[in-house]
Structures are given as C-alpha cells and as structure tokens.
C-alpha cells in the first residue's frame, strides 16, 4: 500500500485532482455555488492527498525519479525528481493549500454575483497544481514552462477583483517584474546548457565541473536575481506589496506563504545542491541581502496602515530571515564546515514552513476583517475583538508567532537562525566574522521591530473603540473560514511545542541532499525532544518552554484569584476619562503608534509631513475651518534605484524611437549597412 502511495501514479493522482478541479470549475461556472463547491472540493482533496503523499515520502526517506516519454528527443522529455527536499516543499504547499481551500469555501461567497466563481476556481486549482510541478520538475526547460504557468495563474488571481483599478495596475507591475525575473532565470539555464549540453538538473549536477568558474558566478548572479525577484528580496520586491494585497485573501495567503518560497526552493536546489563547489562570497552575498531585506522589510511594514500591505512587507522581512539561514549554510559549506552548514539549512527550512503557517493565518484573519469592514485601512478598524472574537484570537496567535515569541513556531526557527549566525561569529575571522555579527544584529533589530509592528496591527485592529460604522456592523466569520484559521493557529502552536521532532525531520531532509550525505549535524535532538546546538553551545526544548508557560500562567492566575484578590470586593465603574467623553478620536492610531519609530529611522524612511488648513475667510485667516495633516514615507528604492533606472531606460527608448522614424528608405539602409558590415566582418 505504502509503495503505491509513494509511486509516480500517486503523484499524478495528486495533480489530476487539481486538473479536474480547474476544468470542472469552468464547466459549472454558471452556478456560483456549484463552482465554489467543485473547485474547493477538489482543491481540498488534492491538498489532503499532497500532505499524505509528502509525509509518507519523508518518513520513508524515499526518492522518486521518472520521466514521461513526451518526445523522441530526450531534451523534450518531461522529467520529475521528487527527493526529500521536493517532498518537504510539496508538504508545505499541500498543508497551506488545504487550509486556504477550507477557508475559501466561506470567503468566496462575497464574490457571488460580482465575478465568475468558475474562473477563480480554474486559476486557483491551476496555481496550486503548478506549484507542485515547479518543485518537482527535473528539467530546466519544463521547469520554466511550469514556472510560467504558476506566474500567469497567479497574475489572473491578482487581477481577479478587476473592478478596483489599483488591482489591475498591481497585476501589471507583477507581470512585468515576473518576466524580468524569468529572463534572468532563462539566462542562467542557457549558460549551463552551453557548457553541459543538457537541461536535466541531474546531468547538470553531475557535469558541473565542465562549467568555468566565471560562468558559474554569472549563473549565480542571474539566478539569484531571477529567483530573488520571485522571493521578494530587496530591492527587487516592489511587486510584492502591490500584488499580494490585491489578490483574494486565501490566494494572498498562498502567494505569501508558498509561491515566494519556490524562489527559495530553487536557490537551495541550485546553490547548495547543483552548483557545488561554490566560492565563499556567494554565501556572504546571500547573508548581506538577507540582512537588508529583513531589516528594511519590517521597517516599511511599520509605516503601513493597509493591513495586507503590512503583511506583505513582513513577507519580505521573513524571506530575509530565511536567507540568513541559507546564507550561513552556503558560507559554512564553502569552508567545508558541513555540520554547521546543515544547521543553517535546517534553520532556513524550519523558518520556511513556519512563515508559511503564520503568514497564511495572518492573511486569512486579515481577509476576514476586510470581508466585514470592506476596507484595508487599519485606521478605520478598532474594537473588532468585540464583534469578531475568534478571528481576533487567531490574528493574535499569528502575531505572537511572527513576532518570534515562545511557545509558538516562529520563535524556534528564529532561535535556530540565531544559532547558525552565532556559530558563524565563533568560527569566522576578520570581515566574514563582521558580516555574521551584522546579520545577527539585523535579526535582533528585526525581531524587536516585528513585535512593535504587530502590537500596532493587533491594537489598531481589534482593541479600543470602533473608528468606523462598518466595524459596528461586523460579524464573526463563517464556520469554514474559522476552521481554516483555527487549524493554522493550532499548527503554529504545535510546530513550536514539537519543534524538536520537526527539527530532526528537517535534518533528515537536509541529509537527503548529496552535499550532506553522511554528514554530521551541529544540531541534535534528544529523545526528550531537547534541541542541542554544537554539543551544548545552546540548548532549548519546545515542550519544556510550553510546560513552563502553562505552569506560570496557572500559577499567576492562582496567585491573583486566591491570594491577592481573595477577600477584595469586585466593583465595576467607568474608566477615568479626564472629564471628557471617550471617543475613538482619543485613541492612538496605527500611524501615531509607529511615528516615534519612523522618526528614529528617518534617515532611511525619509518621512514627510504636509499641513493644510482651510479658513472660513481666506483673506483674514483667523478662523480655521478644517486642518489636514498628510504624512508620507519616502520610497528609497524608487528614489535611488527604480527612478534612475527608469530615466535611463526612458532616454534609451527615446533614442531607439528615432531609429524607427517611419521612413522606409531608412529601414532599407539599415539592412544595407548590416549586410555590408556582415560581409566585412565575416569574410
């Protein structure tokens, strides 16, 4: 039975669920309910099968390699290779797709009679199916085809709510950036093909010695740009804060939780698995970019008052944290410190799955809030905990997890990332040591700022009083939506409490890569689930922390209830209001909360303030009618990177336009000149 489950037939069964879900959704698109039921059913069943398939594959440490004889030319045969790393990513995709699809059943209802649900179901299933194909493809040519299917399906999901013009613009930006990224990826694959003569990843890996070092470096740079763009590294991230909020929330959760991780998957596959041996600077570049992305990502998140954009910026931050783990792994491995490299990789993989869980949870919770309030502006929320208590709880769990507080999962993966960086500080010398010190500092800063950001997000959204009428009309989300969010919240806790078990599984997955075959690991997990780094350098236990917290909580409650408040009489009275009526205007806003932090980082964020006063009498200007204060944050990437780039491209385009001036004689003269030059050069 297990043989069948872990066979290629089982994998194609998994894909066929999404295929049937996609096509069937279109066939029943005339009826909204049927289309929703059909697409959600097949997505749920397919995802469930994916979870099951990947768990068995990982537990049995099984690897699958097969190809479809689609052409008489070996170059055009679709081939798949599902090793432990691929199985891990299948698991992440399936897990998220499962809960997002359950959530989607209730969430999609608000699109009824506004948009075609069949089209949403088609692209949703196609998107998930393409994610599986991307992480299992073993041929660069077909990998690119699957990559394109994933990009195009996600583009149509981003622009699904096409009545909002900003969504269409966001989609266009996403599409343009995607194609820029893809062109870099194509360049790297073509360079490898030139020297190896094959698009097969396994052949490339076996023959990588044929590729000169300079070409390998070019491949690294172009692949890092191409996959980094999809992952959302700074400064290539500009599409991410625009596109993720535009998509339906369960799709945003998948895009942020899983799609951007396909970039990480390919970085691991290429840099750590295929292109070995690698120079030291590759790892250091990844570390530096990771540090910058983490720090700037969270800083920009702090300035946001659009809840989904805030979460999107946190995705950039978390991709930065994942890159810190991966960068450490690459650096260690290039110095033959494979045990430490495995520690870095495990940290990266652990944060990959953790981020997928809590980010999906946060996007789904945000989606529930937006569904009820019809706005993404946090300044118009407030007091939602009264109207949506369960959603508030789920958002709180997600906030604690993303802020890396124990006992939730985010804490343990960030802790492991710290350990990898500390090992780097201990082992390295001179400037490489400084890079590790700065990376650790950046991670510490990021953690603190992320906590501040989610205090702001949770406080402005759920606490205090409602700041708009919509909030007072809000109701708790539908059952399926709460089920989706609740399951992810439980997972966020379980992945923290049982982090020891998860880490030992991730270690096995890392050892599945040929570079770590038979390699010792700097992280060990005892039978009591105690995580031990570098033989006692640092020790932690998820279950121990959880037990301690539970005991402390009960102890505090007990002390308060039985000892401090035992004989005190409970009296209920009004809050002291300084002699004025309490109103939402007395609350601190999301903008107000982050203002002091923005001031501290004003050198980076370049805040601007504009006052506008309208007077009753413009000539005398004594009695103000209204006052408006507009706060803005400068966009460093636009000012220093994209605007100059845009200017250069614009100038070149204007010059290029002169070449095409509409005169046929001129066109023929180009041909003439080209012919003469070709003759003179070739002969």
């Amino acid at each position, binding site marked *: 039975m297990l043989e069948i489950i872990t066979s290629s037939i089982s994998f194609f069964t998994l894909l066929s669920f999404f295929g049937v879900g996609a096509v069937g959704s279109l066939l029943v698109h005339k009826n909204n309910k049927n289309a929703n039921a059909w697409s959600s059913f097949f997505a749920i069943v397919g995802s469930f099968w994916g979870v099951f398939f990947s768990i068995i594959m990982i537990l049995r440490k099984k690897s699958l390699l097969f190809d479809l004889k689609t052409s008489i030319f070996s170059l055009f045969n679709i081939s798949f290779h599902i090793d432990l790393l691929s199985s891990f990513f299948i698991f992440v995709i399936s897990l998220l797709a499962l809960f997002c699809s359950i959530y989607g059943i209730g969430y999609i209802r608000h699109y009824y009679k506004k948009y075609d649900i069949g089209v949403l179901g088609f692209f949703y299933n196609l998107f998930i199916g393409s994610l599986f194909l991307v992480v299992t493809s073993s041929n660069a040519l077909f990998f690119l085809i699957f990559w394109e299917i994933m990009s195009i399906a996600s583009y149509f999901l981003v622009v699904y709510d096409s009545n909002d013009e900003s969504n269409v613009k966001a989609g266009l930006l996403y599409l343009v950036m995607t194609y820029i990224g893809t062109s870099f990826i194509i360049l790297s694959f073509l360079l490898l093909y030139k020297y190896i003569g094959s698009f097969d990843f396994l052949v490339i890996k076996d023959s990588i010695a044929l590729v000169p070092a300079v070409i390998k470096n070019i491949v690294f740079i172009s692949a890092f740009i191409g996959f980094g763009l999809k992952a959302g590294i700074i400064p290539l991230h500009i599409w991410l804060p625009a596109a993720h909020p535009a998509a339906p929330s369960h799709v945003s959760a998948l895009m942020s939780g899983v799609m951007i991780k396909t970039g990480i998957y390919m970085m691991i596959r290429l840099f750590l698995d295929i292109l070995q041996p690698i120079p030291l600077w590759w790892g250091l570049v990844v570390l530096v970019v990771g540090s910058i992305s983490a720090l700037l990502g969270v800083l920009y998140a702090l300035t946001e008052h659009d809840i989904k954009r805030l979460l999107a910026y946190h995705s950039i931050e978390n991709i930065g944290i994942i890159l810190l783990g991966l960068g450490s792994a690459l650096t260690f491995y290039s110095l033959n410190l494979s045990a430490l490299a495995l520690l870095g990789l495990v940290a990266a993989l652990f944060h990959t799955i953790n981020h997928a869980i809590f980010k999906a949870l946060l996007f789904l919770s945000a989606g529930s809030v937006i569904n009820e309030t019809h706005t993404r502006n946090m300044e118009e929320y407030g007091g939602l905990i009264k109207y949506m208590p369960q959603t508030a709880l789920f958002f709180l769990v997600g906030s604690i997890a993303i802020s890396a507080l124990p006992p939730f999962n985010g804490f343990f993966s960030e802790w492991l990332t710290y350990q990898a960086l500390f090992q780097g500080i201990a082992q390295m010398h001179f400037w490489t040591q400084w890079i590790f010190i700065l990376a650790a500092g950046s991670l510490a800063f990021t953690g603190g700022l992320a906590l501040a950001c989610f205090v702001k997000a949770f406080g402005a959204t759920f606490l205090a009083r409602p700041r708009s009428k919509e909030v007072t009309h809000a109701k708790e989300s539908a059952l399926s939506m709460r089920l989706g969010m609740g399951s992810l919240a439980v997972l966020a806790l379980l992945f923290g409490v049982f982090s020891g078990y998860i880490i030992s599984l991730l270690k096995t997955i890392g050892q599945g890569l040929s570079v770590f075959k038979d390699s010792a690991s700097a992280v060990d997990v005892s039978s009591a689930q105690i995580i031990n780094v570098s033989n006692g350098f640092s020790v932690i236990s998820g279950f121990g922390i959880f037990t301690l917290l539970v005991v402390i909580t009960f102890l505090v409650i007990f002390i308060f209830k039985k000892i401090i408040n035992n004989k005190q009489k409970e009296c209920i009275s009004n809050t002291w209001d300084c002699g004025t009526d309490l109103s939402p205007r007395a609350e601190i806003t999301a903008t107000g909360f982050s203002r002091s932090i923005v001031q501290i980082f004003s050198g980076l964020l370049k805040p601007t303030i504009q006052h506008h006063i309208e007077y009753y009498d413009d000539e005398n200007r004594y009695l103000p009618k209204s006052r408006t204060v507009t706060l803005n944050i400068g966009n460093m990437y636009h000012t220093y990177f994209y605007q100059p780039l845009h200017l250069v491209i614009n100038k070149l385009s204007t010059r290029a336009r002169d070449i*095409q*001036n*509409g*005169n*046929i*004689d001129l066109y*023929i*003269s180009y*041909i*003439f000149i080209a*012919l*003469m030059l070709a*003759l*003179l050069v070739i*002969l």
Partner: protein
Amino acid sequence: MNLLTLQFLSQILLLSIVFLLIMKKNFSAVSAYSLQSLVVVIILLNSFFETKDMWMLLVILVMLIVKVILAPVFFIRLIRKYALAFSVSTYLSTPITLIIITILVFIAHSQKLIPLTRIVPDHQVLLSLALSSLFLSLFLIVNRKGALSQIIGILSFENSIVVFAVFANLEQSAALQLGIVFDIFIWIMIASVFISMLYKHFGTLNVSSMKNLKD
C-alpha cells in the same frame, strides 16, 4: 560567349544601375530597367547554350516576356496615368551619390571580398561586377524617394542576384527559377496596385510623406 563579351554585358548591367541612380526622368528609368533585363536574358541564354537544357529556354522566354516586355509596359501605363514624368528627388546630391557609387564599386572589387568573388576563379571580374551591381541596387532603393524608383531598384537587385548566381555557378533548377519569375510577375502587379493606391491617398509617390503612417 567568351569572357570579354560576358564582361561587357555585366558592365552594361552595372552602368544601367548607375544611370538609374542619377537620372531624373521616369521613362528613362523604365528604359534602363528594360535594357538591364535584356542583358540578364542574354547572359542566361549563354548559359542555355552551354547546358542545352530546354527547361532553361522556357525560363528565359518567360523572363523575356515578364521583365523585358510586361514590367516596363505596366510602369509606362502608370507613368502616363498619373503623369509621373519626373522622378521625385534623391536624399543625396549627385556628386555625393557618385562618390558613394565609387566607394561601393571599390568595396566590391576589394581584397576583403575575394572569398566571394573567387567562388569561380575564372569569373572573378564578372562576379565583382555582379556584386557591384548588387550593392548599387541596394543603394538605389535607399537613396531614391520615389516609390517607382524603389520598385525598379528592387527589380534591379533581383537581376543582379540572378547574374551573380549564374557567374558563380549557383543556378537552381529550372522549376525554381520559373517559380521565381512568376513571383516577380505577381509582385510587379501588386506593386502597381499599391502605387495607384498610394498616389490616390497621398497625391505623391514620395515615400518620405508616408512616415506619419506609423502613428
């Protein structure tokens, strides 16, 4: 036919194109084209006498009808219909045109292009002349503003290619050559129709007035 005669014919071809580059009247241009087409037919006839291929004779006959008789007739009717006695101006002045002609002929005869002109060592002079004709035909298309001159330039280019192919012994099968001549015939008809349409729309055959079409 000996080499000297062939050389003389090639020189007529080249001179006809030089004439096309500097002439002002459209009737003269058509006559020059008719003459160069006749030269091509004679060169092909020489090829027929060497091979005795009857299909080749058929090609030559069709070419004679299409290029030497029909094409000039089409053009003369167009000139009369739209009163296009004078060709529209050139981009470059006559002295500069003559300088460029000299440079192009020099390049065609230069050492750099020997790999091309020595495909058949005995025909090096002939191939150099054919190559010069090729370059000058292209220059004719580029330098003339009038649509009619450009069409004649394209046809001269085609004639030059045929002559180069014959001297380089790169002749294709008769069926293919017949197809090419048929193509040219159809092309001349379509070009004539286009010229009529362009004239009706713009009131001139100056192609530079058509550049606004791109917007």
